[in-house]
C-alpha cells in the first residue's frame, strides 16, 4: 500500500513532476527540502498541488511557453546560449501548435469546400449561410496559402543548417540528427500515401464548382479525416466505416504528432544560428497574424451558421455549422493562443540573448 512509503520515496515521486533538466539542476536540494517538509507535515494536499503546479510550470518553461530559462550551472545567471536554446524551444512549441491548428483548419476548410462542390448552384439571391460560407472559404483559403508560403520560408534555412550540421558532424552527431529525420520522413510519407489513398472517398465532387482545386481539397479532407464528430458515437462509427479507414483516422493524428516531435527535436539539435533564429521569430509573428485571420473567419462562419436544421427530406443543408465546427473553432483559438505565447516568449528571449554579454 502506498501509505507505507518513506518520506524519501514520496519526495522522489513528487520530483517526477519536473522535467529532467530542472531535476539535474535542483533535484537533489529540492528532494532534501521535500523530505524535511514531509517529516514535519506528513499529510498535506496543498504541498502536492503546489509541487504539481511548480512541475508543470517548469515543463512549460522547458517547452518555451512560460518563465525564463534555467541558470547555467556554476555560472548562476542565464547565458546567451541558454536563451537561444529557449528561443528554439519556443519555436518548436509554436510548430506543434501550428500543426494542430492547420489540421483542424484543414478539416473545417474541406468541409466548406465539400458543401460548396456538392450543392446545386444557388438561385439568386444567395442565402445568407451560403454567402458567409463562401466568404469564409475564400478567406481561409487565402490564409492557408500564406501559411504554406511562410512554412516554406521557415523550413529552408532550417534545412540548410541541418544539411551543414550533418555533413560536418561526427558519427554520433549524425546519428542524433538522422534518427528524428528518419521519423519525420517516415511519418510524412505515411501521411502523404494515406492522404492520396483515402482522397478517393472525397464526397465533394459532382456538384457546383469552386475556386479550390478538387484534388487539393480532397487531399486535405483525407488527411484531416481524424477531426470528426464520429469519435463521440463509437458504435455507429465502427459499424459505418471500413476498418482500414478507422485505422487511418486513428493513426494519422499519431503520425502528425510524431512528425511534430521530430521537427522540434531537429530544430533543437540543429543549433540554429542567432541570425536564423531572428528570421524564424519574425516568421512566427507573421504566422500568428495569419492564424488570427483563419480563427476569425471560422468563428464568424460558425456564429452565423450554427444549428443542424434538417430539410424536409431529412438532410442537413450545406454550410450549417454543427457542434464539431464549434469544437474546431475552440481548438483553433487554443492553438492560436499557444502559438502567440510561444512567439512572444521567443521574441523576448531573442532580445535578452542579444543584450546578454
Amino acid at each position: 500500500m502506498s501509505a507505507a512509503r518513506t518520506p524519501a520515496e514520496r519526495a522522489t515521486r513528487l520530483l517526477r513532476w519536473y522535467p529532467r533538466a530542472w531535476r539535474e539542476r535542483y533535484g537533489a536540494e529540492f528532494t532534501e527540502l521535500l523530505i524535511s517538509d514531509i517529516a514535519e507535515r506528513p499529510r498535506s494536499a496543498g504541498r502536492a498541488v503546489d509541487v504539481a503546479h511548480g512541475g508543470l510550470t517548469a515543463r512549460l518553461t522547458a517547452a518555451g511557453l512560460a518563465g525564463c530559462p534555467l541558470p547555467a550551472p556554476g555560472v548562476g545567471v542565464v547565458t546567451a546560449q541558454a536563451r537561444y536554446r529557449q528561443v528554439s524551444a519556443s519555436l518548436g512549441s509554436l510548430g506543434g501548435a501550428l500543426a494542430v491548428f492547420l489540421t483542424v483548419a484543414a478539416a473545417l476548410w474541406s468541409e466548406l469546400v465539400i458543401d460548396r462542390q456538392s450543392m446545386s448552384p444557388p438561385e439568386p439571391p444567395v442565402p445568407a449561410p451560403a454567402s458567409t460560407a463562401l466568404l469564409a472559404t475564400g478567406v481561409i483559403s487565402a490564409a492557408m496559402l500564406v501559411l504554406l508560403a511562410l512554412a516554406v520560408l521557415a523550413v529552408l534555412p532550417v534545412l540548410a543548417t541541418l544539411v551543414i550540421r550533418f555533413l560536418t558532424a561526427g558519427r554520433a552527431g549524425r546519428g542524433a540528427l538522422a534518427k528524428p529525420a528518419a521519423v519525420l520522413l517516415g511519418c510524412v510519407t505515411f501521411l502523404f500515401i494515406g492522404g492520396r489513398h483515402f482522397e478517393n472517398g472525397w464526397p465533394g465532387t459532382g456538384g457546383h464548382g469552386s475556386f479550390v482545386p478538387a484534388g487539393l481539397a480532397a487531399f486535405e479532407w483525407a488527411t484531416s479525416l481524424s477531426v470528426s464528430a464520429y469519435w463521440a458515437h463509437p458504435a455507429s462509427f465502427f459499424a459505418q466505416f471500413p476498418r482500414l479507414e478507422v485505422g487511418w483516422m486513428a493513426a494519422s493524428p499519431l503520425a502528425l504528432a510524431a512528425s511534430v516531435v521530430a521537427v522540434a527535436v531537429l530544430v533543437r539539435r540543429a543549433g540554429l544560428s542567432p541570425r536564423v533564429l531572428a528570421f524564424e521569430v519574425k516568421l512566427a509573428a507573421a504566422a500568428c497574424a495569419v492564424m488570427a485571420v483563419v480563427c476569425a473567419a471560422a468563428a464568424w462562419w460558425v456564429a452565423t451558421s450554427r444549428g443542424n436544421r434538417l430539410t424536409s427530406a431529412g438532410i442537413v443543408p450545406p454550410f450549417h455549422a454543427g457542434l464539431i465546427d464549434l469544437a474546431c473553432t475552440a481548438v483553433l483559438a487554443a492553438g492560436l493562443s499557444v502559438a502567440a505565447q510561444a512567439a512572444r516568449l521567443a521574441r523576448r528571449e531573442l532580445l535578452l540573448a542579444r543584450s546578454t554579454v
Partner: protein
Amino acid sequence: MPKRDERPSDRAGLAGFGRYAGPATLILSSLADGPKHGYALTKDVEEFAGVRLAPGTLYEALARLESQGLIRALESDDRRRPYELTAAGAAALRTHLDAQRRVTDTGLRRLKANWATG
C-alpha cells in the same frame, strides 16, 4: 529620468516577478541575514513573516532570482545547497522595500488622520 507615471518598483529588480514578487521579497529579506538553504529559508520566512512558503513556490522563486543574478548558489558538501544574496539582489530588495515603505507610511498616516478613534 523616470517617467511621470512610473512606479518606483518598475525600476527595481523585482519588477518582472509578477505574482512571484511576494515570495521573492520574502526570500531576499531572509537571505539579507546570511546564506541559507531551502528548508532554513522556509523556517526563517515562517518565523519573521508568518508565511510558510510551499516547496514548489519556493523553488520557482529561487530559480527566477538566480537566473536574474539576484541570488547565488554556494558550493556545498551535502545535498542541501545554500544560497546567498548578491549585490544586485541587495539593491533590488532595497528599492522594492523603499517603495513598499512609502505605501505603508502613506496608509498609516491617512489612517491616523481619518480613523484615529479606532
